[in-house]
């Protein structure tokens, strides 16, 4: 049943008391489910002397259930039955992978009972919040291996959306096909990644097309894969003429995620679907809501791949305050992967922080941080010029000053063409370390 109002489900505005009751009930159920159905958890918890009967409060859950990481998953995956390892109920119908950004991809074994549940409880709410509506047409590059790609397809089916699917896959070699499809079919909605929009704009300009003409008809961008800063959102809206840009985030390993709402105060992860915790990246000690740290996810939907206290690789800030959109639930600010963070002036910084400072001075720019651990206490930046007469190239001192004010450390700036920035297979390398190999400009 598709709703007509602002919210997809009444649960989106539920009180914290009600949500906490739901969380406790579901946590106890998922712990029992994991113990009974997943050899991975049963083995680990038995070794720690824990049974489901020991977990009666959220506090006990946090203190007693051990966390695990992607490395644990990779080890177990290599030697076990992928279908049953994480407790997926048979029959398994399809598999998805994580992106493999940090090494070997890990696998999720999926069944339709689980997929239908999570699409209804998580992804339909996400896309509804991000203004997708029945009868729309939506651009999306298919990736049959990607969890978000699969669930997006199922949202389209359920909501009544016509998908515009270009050939190929989401790499630069196919950007010309994406542009052809956008021009030929004029979708109202666009699901993709920020780099895709940028590359399509550049391809459009190469063909003599103004970006607003290229994106004519598209009302909303729904972008995942990297955090969308306020400056990037403004730049994308100005450049393409869309009504709004929504930032989707989360992870496949931890099976949590969503998008932000029109207030853009963070990604609204659903408290009845996930229990999110945040811990200090150095000590693993729990942090309060509002503090920056590593996330731990527990998925509260049984039957599929079970996630109980998975320690993720990203730096986030999780707020638990009612949003101006009226939704309760978490608001998550994703900063970047831990490996993309660096310490300066006693703080953990990420490219997101660097972006915010640059945006104060210049508006959104693409950039790479160079060798932060050996840059002598300054932030060394390669920043891409915008066009041939970028006025900001004369403002390196102002950028340095802004960094000193914000973080207590200066910035050394080198201006380059965008193509001189270091790229990996799919995306811009935002923090470049010489040990990674390759060449920076």
């Amino acid at each position, binding site marked *: 049943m598709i709703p007509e109002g602002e919210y997809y489900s009444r649960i989106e505005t539920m009180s914290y008391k009600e949500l906490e009751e739901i969380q406790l009930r579901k946590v106890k159920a998922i712990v029992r489910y994991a113990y009974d159905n997943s050899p991975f958890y049963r083995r680990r918890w038995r070794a720690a002397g824990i049974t489901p009967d020991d977990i009666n409060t959220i506090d006990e859950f946090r203190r007693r259930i051990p966390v695990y990481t992607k490395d644990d998953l990779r080890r177990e995956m290599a030697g076990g039955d992928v279908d049953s390892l994480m407790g997926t109920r048979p029959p398994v119908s*399809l598999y998805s992978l994580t992106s493999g950004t940090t090494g070997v991809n890990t696998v999720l074994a999926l069944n339709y009972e689980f997929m239908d549940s999570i699409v209804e409880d998580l992804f339909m709410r996400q896309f509804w919040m991000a203004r997708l509506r029945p009868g729309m047409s939506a651009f999306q590059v298919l990736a049959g291996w990607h969890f978000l790609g699969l669930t997006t397809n199922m949202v389209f089916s359920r909501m009544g959306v016509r998908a515009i699917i270009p050939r190929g896959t989401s790499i630069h070699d196919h950007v010309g096909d994406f542009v052809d499809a956008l021009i030929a079919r004029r979708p109202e909605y666009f699901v993709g990644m920020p780099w895709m929009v940028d590359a399509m704009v550049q391809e459009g300009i190469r063909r003599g097309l103004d970006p607003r003409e290229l994106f004519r008809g598209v009302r909303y961008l729904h972008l995942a894969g990297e955090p969308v800063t306020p400056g990037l959102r403004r730049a994308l809206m100005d450049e393409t003429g869309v009504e709004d840009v929504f930032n989707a985030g989360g992870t496949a390993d931890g099976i949590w995620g969503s998008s932000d709402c029109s207030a853009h105060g963070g990604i609204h992860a659903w408290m009845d679907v996930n229990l999110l915790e945040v811990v200090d990246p150095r000590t693993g000690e729990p942090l309060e809501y509002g503090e920056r740290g590593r996330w731990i996810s527990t998925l509260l939907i049984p039957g599929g791949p079970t996630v109980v206290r998975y320690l993720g690789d990203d730096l986030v800030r999780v707020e638990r305050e009612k949003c101006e959109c009226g939704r309760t639930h978490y608001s998550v600010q994703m900063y970047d992967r831990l490996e993309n963070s660096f310490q300066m002036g006693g703080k953990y910084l990420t490219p997101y922080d660097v972006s915010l400072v640059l945006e104060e001075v210049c508006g959104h720019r693409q950039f790479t941080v160079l060798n932060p651990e050996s840059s002598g206490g300054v932030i060394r930046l390669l920043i891409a010029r915008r066009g041939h007469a970028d006025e900001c190239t004369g403002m390196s001192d102002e950028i340095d000053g802004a960094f000193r004010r914000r973080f207590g450390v200066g910035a050394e700036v080198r201006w380059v063409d965008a193509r001189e920035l270091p790229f990996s297979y799919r995306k811009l390398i935002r923090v470049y370390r010489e040990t990674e190999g390759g060449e920076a400009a």
Partner: protein
Amino acid sequence: MSDRAGTVVQIARPDGSAAYLELGAGELAGLASALEGILRSAGLEKGHRLLVYDFSAAINVLPLTRAYAPGLQEGACDSIGCSVLSLDGLAALAPRTAFFLSLLRPEALMIRGDLLPPLRARLGRDVLAVDPNLRSLITVTSDASDPFGGTGGIEGVAMYSIYRVDAALFMALMRPDGRLSYSRDLYESRCSGGRLSVRPSFARVPGFVETSLRCAGREVVAA
């Protein structure tokens, strides 16, 4: 599922320009049915795993499961009861495909013909010898003259090829001995000038589309 859902997929014309196939529930169901017949003939059974090394937007991949194609009620694998993992059809991702061949040990591998050489190079031996669990190798081609990409047979592994004509939503199963089969219920065909032309009965397509298959009366063979 909403009846408004559907998929518009971009395909390449023979001259390389783009064309678009409008696939509503009926067209997607027809494609899934054609593919189901092919996969069953290639030995896929309930409980089997299928690994796909091709782009997910290809018409031989889209109808595999309802999670791949918006508007599809039930995919070919959904009907059979097999499970599927589709990997991107990029030559550079041969290492990933090799890894998942060894991890998942699928009973069948569906692979676009031009991706056989990079995968074989990655494996360092014949692709078919990768795992004794592998029973069927299904290459995919739009060129009926070279359906198996020069791959030799190996004892215990059956070879098949899907011959595909996107503009006609046409898929046929080819065997190494030259036998070819496709659903006469799903496709109308006619033999003209020694070439087979087809059109789907489950979709509105402007006319018959000529294939590279040779024919003589009702007898059809690969080119």
